[in-house]
């Protein structure tokens, strides 16, 4: 065979193999987790596992509800805190900022994205937690330790921030120059152009950026674990401690992997996390396709 054709064939097959592999890994992980959690799944009804709030493994009570609620609340709070400012920042960087400012700020934002999460966690313990304890809590007239849902949300928001900014800025910069010129030619101000033209044509990309940030927030373990308080109770205020699923696994796995039912419960925690992430990414995929259809420009 001609060596060029052979190379082409090999390249084709190789890429096919790696693609298939990356596609089936998620099923592989899911299968292992499911297999490991059958012990607990067969010994307790699923509704009790998912909706009971009582977490006392040594008394045989495995209620994951506080952890599921903790995960969703911390992530939601982080997104609420991070999305608006990061969108404004990326619009400013892409549309308004002089080249010099962009040249300084952008590398700094990228640097922020590369900081290991444990460093964010330490920073949270040293700064965010005392800030909440000494200033935020007295402001609303309560005493609190500072280890709270709010601390987790803030630390997580700051971790998500650079991801959204970085991608959104790229997306906005990629909007064709003619679109801007056309808008300006009609007499629109810069703000009107940004608001009605740029953000609309960049919207699918922005949505994708937010979803990427969301993914990071969801699974983040160490930084959140260090500041969130880790009390297995559904929080009723921002200053209450929370306990997300990844923290549950990280806190207990090393010590409890030799106790079969406990080990199985932690595997189930991982499986629940995986299922929630899958549900969200499917929903996000559908949403994104819908947005693309609706906002399609030219």
């Amino acid at each position, binding site marked *: 065979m001609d060596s060029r054709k052979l190379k082409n064939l090999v390249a084709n097959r190789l890429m096919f193999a790696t693609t298939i592999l990356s596609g089936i890994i998620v099923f592989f992980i899911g299968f292992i987790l499911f297999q490991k959690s059958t012990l607990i799944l067969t010994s307790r009804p699923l509704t009790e596992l998912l909706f009971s709030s009582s977490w006392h493994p040594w008394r045989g009570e495995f209620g994951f509800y506080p952890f599921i609620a903790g995960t969703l609340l911390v992530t939601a709070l982080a997104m609420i805190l991070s999305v608006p400012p990061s969108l404004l920042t990326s619009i400013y960087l892409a549309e308004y900022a002089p080249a010099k400012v962009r040249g300084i700020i952008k590398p700094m934002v990228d640097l922020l994205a590369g900081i290991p999460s444990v460093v964010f966690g330490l920073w949270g313990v040293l700064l965010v937690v005392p800030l909440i304890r000494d200033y935020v809590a007295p402001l609303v007239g309560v005493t609190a330790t500072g280890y709270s849902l709010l601390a987790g949300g803030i630390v997580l928001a700051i971790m998500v921030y650079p991801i959204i900014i970085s991608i959104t800025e790229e997306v906005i910069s990629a909007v064709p120059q003619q679109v801007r010129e056309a808008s300006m030619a009609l007499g629109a101000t810069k703000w009107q152009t940004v608001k009605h033209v740029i953000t609309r044509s960049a919207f699918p990309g922005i949505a994708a950026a937010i979803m990427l940030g969301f993914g990071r927030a969801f699974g983040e373990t160490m930084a959140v674990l260090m500041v969130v308080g880790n009390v297995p109770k559904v929080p009723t205020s921002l200053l209450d401690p929370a306990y997300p699923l990844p923290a549950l696994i990280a806190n207990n796995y090393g010590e409890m992997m*030799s106790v079969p039912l406990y080990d199985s419960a932690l595997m189930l925690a991982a499986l629940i996390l995986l299922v929630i992430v899958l549900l969200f990414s499917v929903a996000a995929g559908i949403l994104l396709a819908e947005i693309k259809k609706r906002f399609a420009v030219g």
Partner: protein
Amino acid sequence: MVCVRVDCMNRKLAVVVVTIIVIASIFTYNYFSGTSAQGGTIKVSGAWALYPMMVKWAEGYQKIHPNIRIEVSAGGAGKGMTDALAGLVDIGMMSRDVYPEEIDKGACYVAVTKDAVVATVNKDNPVLNDILAKGVTRQTFYNIYIAGNITTWGQVVGKPNVTDEVHVYTRSDAAGAPDTWAKYLGKKQEDLRGTGVYGDPGLLEAVKNDRLGIGFNNIGYAYDMQTKKQVQGIKVIPIDINANGQLDPQENFYDTKDEIVEAIIRQIYPSPPARNLHLVTKSAFTGAAEKLVRWILTDGQKYVEEAGYVPLPQDVLNEQLNKLER
């Protein structure tokens, strides 16, 4: 063209050869590392609390037995237990009790040294002087950590006009220290109230930074390694052991690490929160591992105090040696 082709074929051949070598070496590596474990290597893994001690012992033992290699890794008591039961390591290190589920699977363990957990408060605690003068009873700790019916520092020392809230801290991660502290109060770690903070240093930091905080630490963290004094920023809470409402002279041994170690050895400081640290294996210690454990229980004990741990009394050591005979 021909020349180019040959070159190309050679390169492909090279790729194939390299691939085969890589795959083959992965297999042979596994094969050899599998067999060398039988020889002069003793593998140890497990609890963080025992890791520094084990490293000292490993150094000491290798000095007199240069042909023995001891590989020590930490990863939590559960990992030590799992590895030991699966035969991945010869010895597992345990900082918590061995659970019945683990004994059912054939876990065999000996105590090798002691450690203790002490309760801590911030140095600016509003009722610090009362705490240091009166001590705190086990019942009061129970009411703070389990029952939750003591919520102010005034209630802790019997001064109702002090209404500063008690900020209760515990460990978020499953570990020997919280397990032992809960055992002192007759419960499990999952029953301890309070904000969960990760790790011994994290809990220390939380109490250091919160004027109203209460926590607990291994003595290795509550006392400074060099100065042997209590760590700056916190105060160790003395336990009112006989619950007579005041700290008697014989109950007052918290100033330096040497004093509290002495109190633990003489079993004045209650146990728990003092606790034995264990080495574990599947069914029985054998071969090189057995020799090492035997040495740890005899000559190896001289390294214990130097590493900052509490030596076991001689009768307990003898008991452990008897356990090895069986």
